[in-house]
């Protein structure tokens, strides 16, 4: 109570969103989000409030005209009435944007950056590959596995033609 008196002394503008101040703190404070608001949404086609809150004189006159028969309204007047009620038409609110280009570009940039990091790692961080990855070693290893007839039914040795001494075609 004391705080509100101080504020009304300091500034003329009351704390308008605090309903509790106006109602002398006997009502629970309502936040901004619980007050009716206007939204342009495909799944909420009729918002709780009109887009234009305070009508100008001409708009007020138009609203009066609206109370009569609608066939007397011109096209422009109908559009004007629509624009009083709604901010964007469905076509406008559903328009595509070029955001995807930014997203894809950003993703590709970071992928490229990761590739640079990996290249740097391979050069400066990792040790050498073990000896057993050398071509000659792998060749000797494969020869040994074929001599042992490793997995002769469906695996490695089944792919080698032992008569012709070459891989099966």
């Amino acid at each position, binding site marked *: 109570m004391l705080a509100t008196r101080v504020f009304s002394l300091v500034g003329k503008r009351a704390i308008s969103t605090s309903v509790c101040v106006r109602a002398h703190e006997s009502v629970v404070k309502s936040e901004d989000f619980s007050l009716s608001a206007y939204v342009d949404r495909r799944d909420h086609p009729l918002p709780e409030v009109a887009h234009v809150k305070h009508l100008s004189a001409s708009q007020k006159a138009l609203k009066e005209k609206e109370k009569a028969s609608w066939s007397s309204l011109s096209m422009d007047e109908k559009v004007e009435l629509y624009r009083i009620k709604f901010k964007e038409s469905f076509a406008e609110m559903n328009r595509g944007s070029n955001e995807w280009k930014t997203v894809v570009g950003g993703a590709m940039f970071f992928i490229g950056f990761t590739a640079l990091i990996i290249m740097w790692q391979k050069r400066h961080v990792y040790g050498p590959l*073990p*000896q*057993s990855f050398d071509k*000659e*070693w792998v060749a000797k290893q494969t020869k*040994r596995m074929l001599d*042992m*007839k490793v997995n002769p039914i469906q695996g490695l040795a089944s792919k080698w033609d032992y008569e012709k001494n070459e891989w099966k075609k």
Partner: protein
Amino acid sequence: IWTILPAIILILIALPSLRILYLTDEINDPSFTIKSIGHQWYWTYEYTDYGGLIFNSYMLPPLFLEPGDLRLLDVDNRVVLPVEAPVRMMITSQDVLHSWTVPSLGLKTDAIPGRLNQTTFTATRPGVYYGQCSEICGANHSFMPIVLELIPLKIFEMGPVFTL
């Protein structure tokens, strides 16, 4: 009724299935038994049927490999067995859980400390079969492979030949 009837049907399926599961373990009649003991991080094999042969099987370190050897798979002492003979493997562990695996022969048995597990097999083709420890057992879990060398019975009967 929709609960009891399916339950009865499932029991009727399950009981013979369990019976068969345990029966498949029985038919083997092995010729001999080998014990395989898992340690951190090597295997010990004991051939104690006809005399005592006990040895350790360590992975060959990369520096000791000859060109053409399989890195991380070859060991210093292989488990030598005869072909066409039913073998019983008794597998256990000295310290932590290991698992004795030879995938090409369809073998995987956990080595559990304080417990003897048994697996039986009969290999039909001679050759060298590789496997790796299949239960996480510490730092060198990936470095304790198992190698079976299957040879003709005549050569097996000649007895162990140690090479340095």
